[in-house]
């Protein structure tokens, strides 16, 4: 294994283990899983009774609303889990000390990103129980479900990259979390805000940047190149920005 990959793996393992031994991780995952389960059960009861607003399609009636719910909970929890990724090490001086070793910036960054994403992947895997349970009770469109799960994972990757970027900019975890929330809020709700302004050019402009535009399309089963590209470009861009932020720190203290 090359030195770079070995460093990536070691940082990844450290970061993943750090998250998995953090009580906050279990508290957040536990609360949001419980809330999702309660809402899911309510939706399922409505669906099985043919309640108001439900259709015969379990994917559209049960799974998709749950995916939206999981997405909302990802938005809430990711800044809380990523705020410490670099801020903590900047404040403690660990980032400086690592600078005297042979660790490459990109190995550090990819390891931390991978470790955080895998820990979040564990939570997402847990939410897969909902479509599985639904499949036992009704007909589920698996391509849409799989696409939806991948879209959630892609949005988790994008939000993680954004959270890590802001964490690399400050020693304060609180500041990192606040900036991450503001950035995510703008990404997710910019479309709704633009729509309410009734300015057509602004609406058109924000459509390209809005997460909901692309995520919604994938959750509807529309896995177009534009939507996939969006979820590739977003995390990669923020990873590059973070790498630049780390690079600019060298010898600047």
């Amino acid at each position: 294994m090359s030195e770079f990959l070995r460093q990536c793996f070691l940082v990844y393992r450290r970061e993943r283990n750090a998250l998995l031994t953090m009580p906050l991780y279990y508290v957040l995952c536990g609360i949001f899983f419980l809330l999702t389960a309660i809402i899911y059960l309510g939706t399922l009861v409505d669906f099985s009774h043919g309640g108001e607003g439900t259709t015969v399609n379990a994917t559209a009636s049960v799974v998709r609303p749950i995916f939206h719910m999981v997405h909302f909970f990802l938005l809430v929890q990711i800044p809380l889990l990523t705020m410490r990724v670099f801020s903590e090490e900047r404040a403690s001086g660990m980032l400086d000390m690592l600078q005297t070793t042979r660790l490459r910036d990109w190995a550090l960054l990819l390891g931390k990103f991978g470790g955080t994403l895998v820990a979040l992947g564990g939570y997402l895997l847990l939410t897969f129980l909902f479509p599985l349970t639904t499949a036992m009770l009704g007909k589920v469109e698996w391509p849409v479900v799989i696409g939806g799960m991948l879209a959630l994972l892609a949005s988790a990757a994008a939000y993680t990259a954004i959270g890590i970027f802001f964490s690399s900019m400050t020693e304060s975890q609180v500041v990192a979390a606040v900036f991450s929330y503001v950035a995510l809020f703008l990404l997710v709700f910019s479309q709704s805000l633009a729509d309410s302004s009734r300015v057509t050019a602004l609406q058109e402009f924000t459509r390209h940047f809005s997460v909901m535009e692309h995520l919604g399309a994938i959750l509807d089963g529309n896995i177009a190149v534009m939507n996939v590209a969006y979820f590739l470009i977003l995390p990669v861009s923020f990873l590059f920005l973070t790498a630049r932020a780390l690079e600019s720190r060298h010898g600047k203290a």
Partner: protein
Amino acid sequence: MIDVENLTKFYGANRSLDGVSFHVGEGEILGFLGPNGAGKSTTMRCLTGIARPTEGSLHINNLDVQRQHEQLRGTIGYLPEQAPLYGDMTVSSYLEFLGGMRNLDSRNARREMERTTDLLGLKNERKRLLRNLSKGTRQRAALAGALVGDPKILILDEPTAGLDPAQIGEVRSLIRSLKGNRTVILSTHILPEVELTCSSVVIIAQGRIAAQGTHDELLNTIERELVIIARGSESTFRDVLRGAFGDAVSFSHSGDGNKAVVPQQQAEGKRGAVAKAIVDAGLELLELSQTHATLEDVFLRVTQKMERGA
């Protein structure tokens, strides 16, 4: 081995270092002394490439620390003043992780973990989480981290901070044992640590070099003195000593006796005669001794001189 030339560092408008220059030869242990806020840690940070100097040059093994930092990475073992540790890792996993960061494969990283924990008396702490260790044990774990990979250059900023006297002794012995094999820069404000450990000393105050040289060279900058304490008539005491040393003698009181201090140069060869004269004059000779300058004397003198000059 390590050459620092005219190192100057500003933090905003504050000058933290002002034209610091020194040289450390291969296998030397250099004590970097200075009061708190003198610029010791800033110098260490510049040497490791973490901080960028405003002016001046730093070379390690003929490599420019700023321009060729990439080539130097992994060759320096650095222990910062506030030793950072991953509290959620065990001692062994932390040291093995650092081994990996210094390009050791897992087997060698494990071997290095075992070597350094044995060296620092951490064998029984290997499986304990770093956050659960006492301050002294954490400091030893951080020092073990600096030694992982057996780097030829060690930069240690206050390595004995937080240790108890027994542990301080062990760490000093460890650092002394590195002499000849490793080049060590040891920053501290604990003077006996330097006296017992280092082959040469740099004293820094207010960001400037106040003194530098070997231990003996620095001690020779302080003149030794002859101290005489005798009980009896003060006027007789003064007359006897003025007769022997003229105006070179200075008088004071010490407990219930009269005290006189004479520069050693003036007192050379006269000790026996002076002792006899005091006794013959009917005075009770309580003490006749030669002072020995310590590094503390040198330190206080040069740092106070710098402060007065500022």
